[in-house]
């Protein structure tokens, strides 16, 4: 076994012990390379978005430099989230990307619209996959607006090919980052809360919030129809892996988008069903609860023990530890705003506090409390890792 393989086994044991609410030798530390790293290079964001290899190489460079001086365990991923050419060839209306519709150092923007109309609920609910392919994709894609036409056929071929190419590049990046550095992945696979699938990309914020008042039964039926798809999507995108949690960014479920009553009726039942469906297949959920989820802690505690990894952003850490401690692993707790606006000393103090409050008996992974934004400072990211090893040895 090589040194990197030994390191991988050590870190894997550390992470898995924490995920199972145990006390490893050290608090596992999770680190990701995001758009914040690009400003320390000569590259533009457009170059990083369009040239996946460049994005991968910057990620490798950051890992090489960081790991030569510091030690962490879990890797959350590299810079590139999406490959714009896949969207460009479809004439996609969903996003604006740097270099084509935004200036070259701007991050992407999502263009939220009611791409699914209120009248579409019944057809979508009856056959979600069929409706997405035949109705939704033509609406969001100028080049695919007339399925069967020459332009549309060509666009679909190009975009599907781009999807495969982007996935392949991402897989190669991961293989290199994990293999060469002995790191373990934070998660595998991707899924969402059914209410978010409906509210983010289909009905939009305004649409879904009107729907829960004007057509509540349609919303509930659509969420119910999405449940098996979000379980299947999570397992397919994880390629069947059940060792690591399935990443699930949660959006409209943060307080106070919905009242407790609305959350209980519209958000929670279908999300709970997806998490339980994944757990029934041995797949834990990375409950990426950005924002404040404090009012829902008791409800979330209904989930099976160890079925989630709960991220602390603005959720009350003390209450979360009191209710979830020993049942769900906790992750995060260091505000992303602190990584942007704070100083290394403040980051270290915060990390120490989180280790003391959340990790004193295990079941905790030190990490930022959300997606680290492009304006975060490198010295703060490094301070987080330093604090983890300074204060996080049991």
């Amino acid at each position: 076994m090589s040194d990197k393989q030994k390191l991988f086994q050590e870190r894997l044991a550390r992470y898995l012990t924490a995920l199972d609410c145990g006390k490893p030798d050290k608090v596992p530390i999770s680190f990701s390379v995001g758009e914040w790293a690009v400003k320390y290079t000569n590259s533009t964001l457009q170059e990083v978005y369009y040239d996946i290899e460049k994005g991968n190489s910057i990620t490798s460079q950051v890992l090489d430099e960081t790991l030569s001086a510091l030690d962490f365990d879990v890797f959350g991923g590299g810079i590139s989230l999406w490959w714009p050419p896949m969207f460009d060839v479809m004439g996609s209306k969903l996003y604006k990307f740097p270099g084509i519709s935004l200036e070259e150092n701007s991050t992407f923007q999502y263009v939220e619209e009611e791409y699914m109309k209120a009248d579409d609920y019944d057809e979508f609910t009856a056959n979600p996959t069929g409706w997405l392919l035949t109705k939704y994709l033509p609406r969001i894609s100028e080049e695919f607006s007339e399925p069967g036409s020459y332009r549309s056929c060509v666009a679909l071929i190009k975009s599907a090919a781009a999807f495969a190419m982007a996935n392949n590049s991402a897989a190669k990046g991961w293989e290199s980052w994990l293999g060469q550095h002995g790191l373990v992945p934070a998660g595998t696979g991707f899924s969402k809360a059914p209410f978010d699938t409906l509210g983010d990309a289909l009905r939009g914020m305004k649409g879904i919030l009107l729907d829960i008042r004007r057509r509540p039964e349609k919303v509930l039926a659509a969420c119910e129809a999405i449940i098996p798809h979000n379980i299947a999507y999570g397992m397919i995108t994880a390629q069947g892996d059940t060792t690591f949690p399935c990443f699930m960014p949660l959006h409209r479920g943060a307080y106070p988008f919905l009242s407790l009553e609305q959350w209980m009726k519209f958000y929670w039942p279908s999300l709970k069903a997806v998490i339980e469906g994944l757990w029934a297949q041995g797949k834990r959920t990375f409950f990426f609860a950005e924002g404040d989820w404090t009012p829902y802690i008791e409800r979330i505690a209904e989930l099976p023990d160890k079925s989630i990894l709960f991220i602390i952003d603005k959720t009350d850490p003390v209450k979360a530890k009191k209710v979830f401690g020993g049942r769900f692993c906790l992750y995060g707790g260091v505000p992303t705003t602190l990584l942007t606006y704070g100083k290394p000393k403040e980051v270290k103090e915060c990390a120490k506090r989180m280790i003391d409050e959340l990790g004193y008996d295990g079941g905790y992974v030190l990490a930022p409390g959300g997606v680290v934004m492009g304006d975060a400072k490198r010295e703060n990211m490094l301070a987080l890792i330093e604090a983890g090893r300074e204060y996080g040895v049991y």
Partner: protein
Amino acid sequence: MLTTSGNEFIPEAGTCVSWKIKKDELGELPGNEEMVKKYWDMLDAFAYSFIWFWVQR
């Protein structure tokens, strides 16, 4: 509803055109069915993840 070869069906979660449906159309295969099924399923899952990718942002 989608139509294929005159048969209407609603694809199950995780599939676009499941092997079961295709197998009914193909009937008995003269060679190794498992091999054909394996790659059918792999590419069907790819198509499924492509379709759902657009709403799983």
